[in-house]
């Protein structure tokens, strides 16, 4: 991707992909989403398994942003 790379030579960290980082920042803070008992998963109340599931969410989104904003020269 990174087709929005401007033709100028100056380097920049700007990228539309960076907005994706907002997802794992906002979602784990919305307690309304996960502050409940049901459904349980393997005995875990939703409160616990959902928050643990946000960890892979954070990893994947951060990884995508890293891959997509990697500089051409490396």
């Amino acid at each position, binding site marked *: 991707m990174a087709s929005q790379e401007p033709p100028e030579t*100056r380097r920049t960290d700007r990228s539309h992909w960076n907005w994706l980082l907002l997802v*794992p920042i906002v979602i784990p803070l919305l*307690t309304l989403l996960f*502050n409940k008992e049901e459904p349980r998963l393997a*005995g875990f*109340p939703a*409160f616990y398994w959902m928050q643990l599931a946000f960890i892979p969410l954070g990893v994947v*989104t*951060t990884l995508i942003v890293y891959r997509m904003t990697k500089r051409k020269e490396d």
Partner: protein
Amino acid sequence: MKDHLTELIIFGFLFLLVSGMGFVAARWRRPATMDSLDEWGLGGRNFGSWISWFLIGGDLYTAYTFVAVPALVFGAGAMGFYAVPYTIVVYPLVFLVLIRLWSVSHVHGFVTPADFVRARFGSPTLALLVAITGIVATMPYIALQLIGIEAVLKAMGVTGHLPIIIAFAILAAYTYQSGLRAPALIAFVKDVLIYLVIIVAVLYIPSKLGGWGDIFDAAEKKFAATPNPGDGTLLNGANQLNYAMLAFGSALALFLYPHSITGVLASKDRNVIKRNMAALPAYSLVLGLIALLGFMAIAAGTKPIGTDSNTVVPVLFDQMFPSWFTGVAYAAIGIGALVPAAIMSIAAANLFTRNIYKEYIRKDATEKQEATVSKLVSLVVKVGAVACILLLDPQFSIDLQLIGGVIILQTLPAVALGLMTRWFHRGALIAGWAAGLAWGMWLLYEIPNPLKGKKHFGGSAYNLSELGFDTKMTIYVGVLALALNLLVAILGTLILKAAKVKDGDDATKSDDYVADAGDPKVKELELTGST
């Protein structure tokens, strides 16, 4: 103590093993000389992705976290789980900021966050405030690592302060000799042990307690029977906002701590940092599972030693594991205290050297003199931490650590926002820092904790009703203080700019913030300003 002989032997063996590694670390990756802060204090600024992952992970997820978080879950339930969203949110939050910090530090040779502030805002005063804030916030954090070791020793029946003094003397000696290389090397052992212990614990202990469902049910039953409305396996209407804000505020604060920045600046290039922002949450998973040990302790009917709830996890291990494996688990916690304690003392020492000694005492200090001063100060810092624990009530360190989190947040406008924009006026940043600090301290002072029988410094959750809001909700003090700080900094900047008050010069260029390894460095900085 005799009952715990096997545990003591295993613990002692592993402890001595990593101590040996600490001394050998001086020769690891062969520096030509240890006589500069780049080598002693930042390990040569050359750590790759793997070493950085172990180092930063070992640095941020401390022994105290590993005993205090499950202790909190054991005592209060869901609220203690805030550590999980906190350590998920933090990496995407700082992703773009840290790479800029790395770049500008690479170009200009900055060792501390205060070095950056000094150059960015041309203000030694603001840099001094950032440095002092960092040192004050870090000191009690080091002391808390001792509490982590002490919890383990207590569980093995070892009492008295001598073992702690010996452990810290060894730590001080090899940190003095090897600098940041010592914790970087030890972090491998620490993290392997922690992962091993936790994987075994979450597979083995629930099978003995009837499964995860039973564990959560037991916890629900316990909290339902207590009179405290704030506990439970779920959050309630009053503490949800505090939960989210505590996670958010702690995430904002984490990479303002000088020891976190030391770990970041030791990386060899930007990609190492970016990759680690994606890979470090692996530790958050471990932390989440460790937090759940608190519920396992409830289900297992674990009783902490005396009134020290921090001993809950060590006692649980002792109950559940064969003694040789308990020894391994204790060693994991004990060694887990050494890595962050070493990095924190290095970071605090570097702040003193760069932003107090070199700035105010000896302006023409050579690199060798800087390294020598830093090494000595790292010893002083550790003696101070031990003295804190021995001479004062440990509760005092815990209170100080609570305050530390709130005050380190007050450096956010200068350090983190300063990396993104040069809009703020140095005078306004100083005013904002002072306002946030004063109000934050006052709010903390005002919070009682009836459960512990304390009138002041009883926690960090402030009742919004005290501010005139018609609600039962509470909120993390750090976020309130930071809001005032920002307000003052913004208004102050508008006023000072309108009044055309002289601002400091910016010694950095916008290109510096996107530089990568291999780009030219500025060896001698021409710093201006005397405010």
